[in-house]
């Protein structure tokens, strides 16, 4: 399933709200949490992480994982939290607006 333009950043921020994760972990978390509907390509996720890092919404740090492997873990910064709130309310507004137009599909509709 393709992503809407600009939603990837929001998904990453939301995923990191639950706790720090490394790059591959983020991809997997989005995949699992969307009941395996969203399959984020690492090739797009990774540059997005760099962008978010540059904007100061997430921060990265080298840590050791549960399997005793070193990896770079990303976590949400206070600025990122604020950004997530803004994007969240924008998103719900967008969803309800689209929902109003679409409504339930009428019976017998083709």
């Amino acid at each position, binding site marked *: 399933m393709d992503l809407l333009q600009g939603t990837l950043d929001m998904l990453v921020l939301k995923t990191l709200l639950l706790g720090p994760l490394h*790059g*591959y972990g983020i991809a997997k978390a989005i995949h699992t949490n969307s009941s395996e509907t969203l399959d984020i390509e*690492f090739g797009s996720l990774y*540059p997005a992480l760099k*962008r978010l890092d*540059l904007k100061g919404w997430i921060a990265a740090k080298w840590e050791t994982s549960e399997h005793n492997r070193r990896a*770079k873990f990303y976590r949400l910064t206070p600025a990122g939290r604020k950004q997530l709130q803004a994007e969240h309310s924008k998103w719900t507004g967008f969803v309800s607006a689209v929902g109003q137009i679409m409504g339930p599909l009428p019976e017998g509709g083709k």
Partner: protein
Amino acid sequence: MWLRRIKYLLPSHRRSEESDMQAELQSLAAIAEPGELGNITRAAEEARAAWGWTWLEQLWRDLQYAFRTLRNNPGFTTTAVLSLALGIGANTAIFSLIDALMLRQLPVRNPQELVQLKFRDPRGARPAEDSFSYDIAKALADQHGIFSGVCGFSGAGFDVGPRGSVSHVEGAWVTGDCYQTLGLSPALGRLLDRTDDRPGAPPAAVISYRYWQSQFAANPAAIGQSIALNSFPVTIVGVSPRGFGGASVGSVADITVAVAALPRLVPAFAAFLTPGNFWLRILARPREGVSISQTKAHLAAVWPQIAERVVSPEWPADRRKEMADSTFDLTPGGTGYSYLREQFGRPLLVLMAVAGLVLLIACANVASLLLARATARQREISVRLAIGAGRGRIVRQLLTESTLLSAIGAALGIWLSWLGSRFLVDTLSGGQSPVTVDLTPNWHVLAFACAVALANGILFGLAPAFQTTLIGRSGMLRQDTRTTHSHSRLLSSLVSAQVALSLLLLVGAGLFVRTLENLLRLDPGFQREGVLVVDLDGQREGYKDARLTAFYSDLLDRARRVPGVASASISSHTPLSGWTWTEAVAPKGQPVPQGDNAVFIAAGPNYFATLRTPLMAGREFDDRDRGSPNVAIVNQAFAASHFPGRSALGQYVTATVTKPPSDLQIVGVVKDSIGESLRTAPRPTVYVSYFQRASGTDSLEIRAAGSISQIAAAIHKELQPSFPKTPIDVRPLTAQVEQTLVEERLMAKLAGGFGGLGLMLASVGLYGLLAYSVVRRTKEIGVRMALGAQRGAVVWMVARRALALVIAGIAAGLPLAWLLSRKVQSMLFGLTATDAGVMAAAVVSLMGAGLVAAYVPARRAARVDPMTALRHE
């Protein structure tokens, strides 16, 4: 966030980020299942893009690559850079002069508000007059309802210093409101104001910042000092602001004095202050918020009353009426005034156009070089496209290369222009007065050069870049013959265009060079070689009337006795000095006309012998002609117009040389000789005996029998002691004649130089094309030779192509030349703009240049060894 991004400009920071990223990606690859992460290299590449400086990195890499390729092709690079440098240099040099003379605003407050006043006679018969009398300037300055300030000014020259060590300094006369009108404040002391411009006010001078620095070592004590101007003590009251050298562009006024002081400083010109003398230019600042048309309307309303007061009461009624009915023109005055604009404005614009043509040829050269090279690089580019380089990326890289080429060319060109514009100013300074302009490259000029270079780089890089990348798109790695053909068609038309443009340049060169030759060869009616001229101003030394005449008579005798002097004479005017004296004259018994109808010259004994003006009948003036009866000598033009069909000798004319007019008996007729300008035919002229009509500012003419410079030195040594207050100048008459040819010399030199340059550039272009095509056709030539073609036939094949290109260019250029050369007809002399000889010479030299350019490639073609050629590829 910006701060973070800027941090990425640091190479060290980028390197550490890069290694961190690589480590991260490796660690993730270890965690993830194999292949799950996809193309990691691409992910890294796009992550780098997030840093935001990829374009800069690419540009840097492109630049490095461009530098390398340019360095590896020294022949190509040198030709292209030199072509561009010459083209850009020529344009920038001429532009910087145009900028300095015509475009640059004066360094004053709000220069765009200033207007220059001009005077238009009611019938509009004459061009608008830009000179005004002192009284008019003062009366206009009193119109406070119209102008917030009116500045009348004129150039001046002062002999500065104590007796015995005087030097000449350029200066200006200004009216009282001048500095206030321009809105200037002094660098030191005070500037002149109305109190200085009143009769009897103590003479005060303002010096320029530059003069203060050079002559007073920027010492503040200069204020209050007295300096001798024309041996009259004047107090320095202030220093004008830095960079300001007066309102006259082209000369720097180092010493400025109020007009009211003129009668005391230059008694001979005291009459300048009378209502009949028009000599001040006027810059005015209209009142704030008043439009130009309103100002004009106000001026028109008040002018008749002003005219009543300021027009000379001595003038005849019709002339007074004409003055009162005249109207004012207001033209933008922010760029000041310059006589150079009238004299050189048109030549400079013509030269700008000519330099533009040179640049076009240079650009065509570079374009064809780039095109030829693009063809040679076809393979490289095809390979790069095939392995996945974006087309835009390659076009960008090629453009970087051509822009870099232009930039190097421009840098060199700016340096060349700096030399060239100095040479231009030197040429202009050969005229009547030296030209001083500030040619420090300013942002106007630099922006001009950069714009030209950039436009050039993009324009002429674009076509080859697109053409080359087009081929790659079809995915062909092999040579594509079709596009190569379209390449060589484009190349040939570029070369023919160059030939056409250089034909224009050569025709221009021929026209201006022939004009100068015609003027130099013209028989002016006197022989200028070997004659020295000394201007005398005895009034400055305190001589008057009879004592002045006696003083001059003595000088003449002493000059005659100097060894090596063949003959000497004295006269009121010398040929081509820029001054003329006119009077009204008619044969005795006929009414003397209202207006002046003849040129008058007061000449001493031996005047015609000294100048070698042939005497056609009668005699020269001699010592008999010191008292009455009054005698005259006329030129042939005068004799022919007033005494047609009969001898003028012995006849009487009545002339306004005295009041009332007196009768003069004609004792001689001389050949017509040039007086005002080499370009205009001599006017009817009457010579009167010098010692019956001495004027005041006169000149000695001395014919030297030996080395002219030695005799000049001897004359100077002999006469200078008699002039303790003024330095005298002994100069050859040839120099005086040369001075009037500055414009022609400028045009001939530059048009000639540009013509040669154009020819050279076009030849290089042609050579490049032929050499390239011989290399490309090596195989074909080999086959032909193997099949029995003679070497001569091969040579002819190359020469034929050269001639075909040149002829195509000439065919395109001739009609253009025929149309465009008419635009300069008014600047020519002694030939028409479509002179067949000039056109033919241009055509022949182009053909010759074409054959010369073909020589080396043709020889190379003839040397092709069939065996080697067939093994080629």
